[in-house]
């Protein structure tokens, strides 16, 4: 593990032949064009195969999310203005905008129907610090939904540290979610702003508005709900256990994960 602190010099030679791409945690002074580490963390230096480009970034933990282009995030809709939704990515952070046109098949006549308080999974399409950040709920390459859009209320949203959410989303070899999959069936959306939406089984039942029933139907429904209520309780237990499991994985060594999983799914 190679740790750097602000003020240290970066462990790179002054090699003019390779161009350098800088990532998070590295700051380039606009006056001197010098690059310095600006946060404390694990330094990563990656060279491309032809040694033409070099990537440098510092991986560090934090709780406050700063939007970057192409990040996948979970946001809560807090308001509507004009043709935009106001979306909150984190408490007390500046809210970002989500255009009503940034949905698949959206047009002026066919607007998405989202309400204040609902959660969406979206991609950051523009993140310039000086101006408002913009999101979109559309896969830019195909123009289709691509997994973005409304996250319904049958799931559960909780927060984790930012470095952990990056680990879950980007590390293909991470055993954490694979091990969870051996215990229950789940659907997950990981926002790199430290928010995770999870739904085990069918999740929490959503009460449909205005679904009135009468006579025979009602009896049928009663029978049905008796059978399914057991499932709902089980799914709910699974969802909460999975939440606790993911949250405690933040502080566990990889060999302690199995024991934790066993302990939490003991019902």
């Amino acid at each position, binding site marked *: 593990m190679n*740790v750097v602190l602000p*003020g240290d010099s970066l462990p790179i030679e002054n090699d003019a032949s390779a161009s350098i791409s800088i990532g998070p*945690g590295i*700051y380039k002074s*606009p006056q001197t064009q010098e690059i310095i580490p600006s946060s404390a963390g694990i330094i990563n230096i990656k060279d491309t195969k032809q040694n033409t480009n070099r990537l440098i970034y510092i991986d560090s933990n934090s709780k*406050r999310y*700063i939007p970057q282009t192409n990040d996948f995030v979970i946001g809560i809709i807090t308001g509507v203005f004009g043709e935009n939704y106001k979306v909150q990515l984190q408490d007390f952070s500046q809210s970002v905008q989500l255009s009503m046109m940034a949905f698949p098949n959206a047009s002026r006549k066919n607007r998405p129907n989202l309400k204040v308080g609902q959660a969406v999974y979206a991609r950051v399409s523009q993140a310039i*610090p*000086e101006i408002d950040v913009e999101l979109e709920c559309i896969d830019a390459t195909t123009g289709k939904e691509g997994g973005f859009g409304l996250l319904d209320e049958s799931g559960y949203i909780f927060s984790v540290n930012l470095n952990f959410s990056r680990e879950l989303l980007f590390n293909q070899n991470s055993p954490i979610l694979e091990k969870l999959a051996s215990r229950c069936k789940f659907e997950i959306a990981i926002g790199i702003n430290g928010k995770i939406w999870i739904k085990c089984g069918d999740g929490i039942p959503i009460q449909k508005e205005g679904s009135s029933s009468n006579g025979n139907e009602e009896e049928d429904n009663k029978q049905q709900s008796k059978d399914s209520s057991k499932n709902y309780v089980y799914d709910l237990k699974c969802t909460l256990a999975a939440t606790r499991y993911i949250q405690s994985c933040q502080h566990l060594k990889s060999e302690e994960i199995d024991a934790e999983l066993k302990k939490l799914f003991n019902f």
Partner: protein
Amino acid sequence: MSATPSTSILSQVDGSAQLLLGPIKVLASVTGPIEAKARQELPTLASLEIIVRPATGVSSTREKLLEDKLRSLLQSIIVRHKYPRQLIQVVIQFLSSDSDHSANAKAFTSNELNAAINCVYFALIDANIALFSSFASVSLCILPSSDSFILNPTIAQLNESESHHVICFDIKDKQADKILLVESQGSFSEKQFYLAIDEASKECETIHNKYQRHCIVEKIREDFVWKF
């Protein structure tokens, strides 16, 4: 520094640290970058809100003075251009202190300021706020008619001393580089002052290499516990 600091002890803020330096216990928290109020917002820079709270009683002019000193230090150390239009909130809460409100005015300009600076460093690192460099500070006093120093003086030693100083250096490549803040009180000669600065730069390097680096490496190891 007598005790190792603990970081991430508050759950509702973005970064926090607690430090015990002799009789002074201080808790620092950092929240940000967050949405600034319209009157605080600066179009190209992050604005800083610094609040100092005393161990007992309500805050007074002494806390305002400390806030001012800390602001001048933090303004030059935080990469404020990285967070335009945002707000960074820093709260320093003293938990215990040897300075009695009435009796000892000396303690807060030396020991309390010194503890606050050293503690806020860890809180900023914990909040992952971009910094130009690391920094450390020392508090020392000069005894009458001598060139000898006492580092981290107690209240009794401060009262006996002729002058006391808080000197904060930025650390580049494990070496003390530039002076970020000097706060001196009492009478002293030029020679004494230069000696004090010399002494302080050595001590700042020790603090950084012995305590700060060690503590941060431990913290990062804990943050990425699943990797190791």
